[in-house]
């Protein structure tokens, strides 16, 4: 029995040593790359000061084209949106962006009505992308707060990287091999952080015109607002088009709202909540117009 226990302990130690070594290397390589948005912001963006940044989920990533905005308004902007995320991740991304010593005059926060009024924040599908920064207290605390149930694989990755890397092996381990081979490769977004859906409109589900009322109940939204105030950043809340939906925001003087929920013709949608490439140009120019002539 003694021999068995000793051997099991020894082999477990050995496996954890090798496994954590591989996982650590994997996160290290990924952390030096530009594959995901947070690594891109850290390693791929040299500029420190921006006139504005666009922050949001997939709608933020694909609706406003920062290249076109910069060309039209003669500004310097960056898109730091990450798909499949929500306001809690946006708050983390904003904090992370600022922690890198970067600044912005304006924050264009792309919201969705459901997320904005959601009082409960949970871990988002793509939050694992921050795992390369798990040693950073900011990220560690975020994971610790968001991972409520079961084994906190992301949180405990600070001490045992194999937990997160094996759980998200497709997304992190194999991506790190790819990043090792192509360290400057970005995950589908351009050098300004934008992504666009193709010029097709075949994913739209028919519906009827509806009003959606939203409210500012999301605690992360309130934190973003507070952080912007602290850092002297102008907050602009942007609502991208939603097919046949009119989003109604409560009146506020705390920040500017640009509501494009109803401006887009049907043929410029990619699906019900995303615009196609022509739709992106349409929305971006409309956005610039509102910024120029408020």
């Amino acid at each position, binding site marked *: 029995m003694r021999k068995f226990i000793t051997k099991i302990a020894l082999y477990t130690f050995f496996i954890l040593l090798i496994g954590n070594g591989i996982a650590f290397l994997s996160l290290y390589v990924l952390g030096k790359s530009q594959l995901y948005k947070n690594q891109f912001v850290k390693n791929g963006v040299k500029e420190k000061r921006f006139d504005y940044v666009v922050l949001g989920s997939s709608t933020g990533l694909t609706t406003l084209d920062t290249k076109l905005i910069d060309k039209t308004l003669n500004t310097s902007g960056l898109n730091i949106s990450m798909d499949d995320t929500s306001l809690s991740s946006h708050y983390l991304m904003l904090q992370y962006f600022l922690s890198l010593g970067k600044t912005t005059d304006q924050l264009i926060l792309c919201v969705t009505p459901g997320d904005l009024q959601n009082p409960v924040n949970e871990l988002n599908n793509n939050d694992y992308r921050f795992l390369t920064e798990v040693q950073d207290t900011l990220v560690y605390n975020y994971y610790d707060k968001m991972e409520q149930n079961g084994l906190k694989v992301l949180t405990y990755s600070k001490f045992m990287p194999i937990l997160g890397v094996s759980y998200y092996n497709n*997304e992190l381990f194999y991506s790190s091999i790819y990043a090792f081979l192509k360290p400057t490769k970005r995950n589908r977004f351009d050098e300004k952080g934008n992504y666009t859906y193709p010029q097709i409109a075949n994913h739209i589900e028919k519906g009827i015109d509806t009003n959606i009322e939203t409210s500012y109940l999301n605690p992360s939204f309130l934190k973003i607002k507070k952080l912007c105030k602290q850092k002297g950043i102008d907050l602009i809340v942007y609502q991208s088009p939603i097919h046949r939906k009119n989003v109604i925001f409560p009146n506020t003087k705390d920040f500017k709202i640009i509501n494009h929920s109803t401006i887009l013709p049907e043929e410029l949608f990619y699906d019900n909540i995303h615009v196609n490439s022509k739709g992106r140009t349409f929305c971006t120019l409309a956005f610039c117009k509102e910024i120029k002539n408020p």
Partner: protein
Amino acid sequence: MLFNSIEFLLFLPTVFFLYWFVFKNQLRAQNVLLLVASYIFYGWWDWRFLSLIIASTFLDYFIAIQLGKTDVSKKRKFLLGISLVGNLGMLGFFKYYNFFVTSWIEAWSSVGITMEASTLNIILPVGISFYTFQTLSYTIDVYRKEMQPTKSFIDFAAFVTFFPQLVAGPIERASHLLPQFYKNRTFDYQNAVDGVKLIIWGMFKKVVVADNCAFFVNKIFENPEAYSSGELFVGMVFFAFQIYGDFSGYSDMAIGISKLFGFDLMVNFKFPYFSRDIAEFWRRWHISLSTWFRDYIYIPLGGSKGSQWFQIRNVMIIFLVSGFWHGANWTYVAWGLFHALLFLPLLLFNLNRSHLITKSYGWLDFAKIGVTFLVVCIGWVFFRADSISDAFQYLAHMFELKSLGLSLFYKTNANLMIFGLSVLAVGILSLQELFWVIKKRDLPKISAFGALLLVLLIFFMGSFKNQMDFIYFQF
């Protein structure tokens, strides 16, 4: 509680520690511990399920005691009848009630008679088919006077609920497993090491092979019309490996965990995809179930004795019952029938035992293995499809050979990644098993280095995020 869950990762070492350190050399205390642990393990799904298994345990314990007390044939038959009605009644009610009601209504509606009946919102207790057959084997063996009834309720209850194999087998015979609860168990280093290696191998089959393949299988079987013939073919082959990895992986883990506690369970799979005909496949696939049917149904029916019509009848019964055992759906019956039709020619031409002796494998054998595998894969389409018509549509679309494109597997980076992992996993499994088959082994034999490598492969190739339940739990 799943073997591949965090709870079990804490549960197993705790029970192991108590078993070998706290209750060492205390047979009765060890058996009580195993019983309590098994109830916790089973009750983890839903504590209400415990009432059924406890009822089944009491029923067969007392019936067997009564059988041991009497030699009166009528009384013995009556007692056996109570056990059969009680056990099969519970199984029938929880597993088949809704199926029979809806099938009855559909049958009448097909001839224009509309009937109304309500189905019940019944939850199928996990593993009910497995433990029902296990307890029945005990009562039948006592009835046949092939074994003595046990006087110890604890030993019997621990045998019925033995957690490593409780919910998905192997379905143990009382004559094999129950006596192991009577004997003092001493820790055997080599046995425990072999057990750990089997657990690792089983985990690899489940988490790496089955769960990765499941990603595409679920997509393809959900909407087969949307995919090309090539994709449907891959989906079919992936399901063959999913169900094999899932089920045999569980069996390997069950055998391995049992070894840690000093128990020996029967081998349930002997590399079935290296069978040279269907008869050999059934000697290698889910052995504990096929031998159960052989011993308790096929042979009592007359087996392969008697006229050809009798033989055909017996084979048809055994395969149809086997199919129906798997689930309350006609697809399983169709799957059983499909195998019966493949088996019958072998039986009629006396070829069903041509591959009993494992000799060296020649090229012809490998060709036979390939053909048998493809035929088995076609059978799996019936097993996996939601309905028989869905299965036929799947096969028709696959054999149309309109398009052999495989774009599904490289449509997105994630798909390409998972496809690559699935192919790699299936490749590792197949090559490793081929090696064992050539070496004429019945059980996996893994070196220490191999086990280490497998653990790393589980970590870095396992599908943890898209973890699936064990398929056979639903049976």
